[in-house]
């Protein structure tokens, strides 16, 4: 039997602003910056964009951000709305864009996120806003926050697998090394394992340099049903809980389930992947995801790192822009920056930062406390 023919989804353009401190610039200013860059790069006319998907901004909780942005950007899409899935929002917008392109609902979609999370609010406000992903009656009133949720998770995971603080620190160091050569990265000054270990405790076992910074910045991509340099060939989600206290098993958070769905769609196996873009809100997040996704044995992510596998020149380059831990975290845009980097490297457009050409990237993002999971498989069309 012939399979029905669906249009395909390609990423045509991807851009970020510089991440870090943008004094006096609003969430909209930053989003527009990234969007204008991505649109210019795509070579498309504004009238050709018929879909707009937009991530929420904690500093600018507007009721219909995608319409507002469309107006400000001179776009009149057929389809537009905002999305909220915490850190998984960026990858989820790419997944939805692919679905809309394949269904024929849209032909060319702008995916955009950004906010002034660093300069637009007090640090306490940012921490309190994020803490609300916790349970309002049984978790948040304990004086808990997102770093505390992840610290509890880290303690349980480290107890079960033997991962130690030094290994966490090595991932922070790797992300900083990768950020060093990216002109848009928030944190580029080299750090050592000893510095990570000696940084001030936030919520043990996590110290300051185990945590991503809070940044201002924006990311944008243009997807199209017309052929482009990178195709999205698989996607999958999993949602097993919202709250940490409802997590059934720290070894089965949902990450592997989402990834299995994405790989099955792409008809690929884990070993066919040669580039990784993995969410890294904390060092423990990165290690847990790498191991659950099957890119390292349980308790074995550190060993792969020490073999050099995750380096820019390694077998499985990981977050070559520096990830949330060093490129920076400006909410939804931070997670989207992983997709921008994966696209840039797969498309061979990273300029002086270009790594050996790669064929297939696995993007994985989580929202909440490893609550919402989204996996994507990207393929370089000229390498396929």
């Amino acid at each position, binding site marked *: 039997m012939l399979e029905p023919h669906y249009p395909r989804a390609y990423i045509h353009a991807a851009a970020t602003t510089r991440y870090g401190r943008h004094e006096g610039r609003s969430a909209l200013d930053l989003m527009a910056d990234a969007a204008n860059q991505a649109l210019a790069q795509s070579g498309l006319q504004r009238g050709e964009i018929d879909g707009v998907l937009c991530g929420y901004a904690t500093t600018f909780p507007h009721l219909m951000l995608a319409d507002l942005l469309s107006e400000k950007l001179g776009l009149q899409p057929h389809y537009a709305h905002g999305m909220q899935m915490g850190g998984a929002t960026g990858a989820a917008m790419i997944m939805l864009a692919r679905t809309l392109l394949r269904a024929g609902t849209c032909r060319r979609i702008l995916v955009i996120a950004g906010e002034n999370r660093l300069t637009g609010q007090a640090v*306490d406000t940012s*921490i*309190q806003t994020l*803490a609300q992903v916790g*349970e*309002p*009656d*049984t*978790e948040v*009133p*304990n*004086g*808990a*926050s997102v*770093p*505390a949720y992840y*610290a*509890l*998770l*880290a*303690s*349980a995971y480290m*107890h079960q697998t033997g991962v130690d603080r030094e290994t966490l620190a090595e991932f922070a160091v790797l992300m900083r090394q990768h950020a060093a050569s990216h002109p848009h990265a928030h944190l580029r000054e080299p750090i050592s394992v000893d510095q990570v270990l000696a940084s*001030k*405790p*936030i*919520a*043990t*076992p*996590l110290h300051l340099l185990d945590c991503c910074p809070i940044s201002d910045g924006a990311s944008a991509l243009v997807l199209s049903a017309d052929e482009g340099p990178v195709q999205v060939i698989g996607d999958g989600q999993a949602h097993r809980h919202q*709250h*940490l*206290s*409802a*997590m059934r098993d720290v070894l089965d958070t949902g990450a592997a389930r989402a990834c299995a769905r994405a790989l099955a769609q792409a008809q690929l196996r884990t070993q066919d992947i040669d580039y990784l873009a993995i969410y890294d809100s904390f060092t423990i997040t990165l290690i847990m995801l790498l191991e659950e996704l099957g890119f390292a044995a349980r308790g074995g992510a550190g060993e792969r790192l020490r073999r050099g596998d995750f380096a820019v020149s390694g077998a499985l380059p990981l977050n070559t822009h520096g990830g949330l831990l060093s490129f920076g975290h400006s909410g939804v845009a931070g997670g989207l920056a992983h997709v921008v980097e994966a696209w840039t490297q797969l498309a061979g457009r990273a300029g002086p930062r270009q790594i050996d050409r790669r064929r297939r990237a696995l993007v994985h993002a989580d929202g909440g406390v490893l609550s919402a999971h989204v996996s994507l498989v990207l393929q370089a069309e000229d390498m396929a």
Partner: protein
Amino acid sequence: MTTRHPLDLQRCAQCGAWWALRPYACAACGGTTLSWQRATGEGVVIARSDVHRAPDAQWRALTPYSLVLVQLDENVTLMGHAETGIVIGQRVNGRTTEINGRLLLKFEARHPP
């Protein structure tokens, strides 16, 4: 915020499963009749963190404080505070304590009966 006792949990009338996070349906059997019942507060510590960076000024005054996740004997997980020296794997007993004007749980080492 809640006025309930922190050890008041919900129990499914259909299958007897306990739930700590106030669901509208039992995730084990799909039952929607859930009644309040008090848990013993006894269980095992599965996670622990000492919080040094508090979310607000009120909590900052109390840093560092220890948070734990405890797997209760009723097979639910609850978050609470812990006395110093509590470690993962240890059997504990939760009692209520007032911190910052809220009735919270504090877990301490379980003393033999």
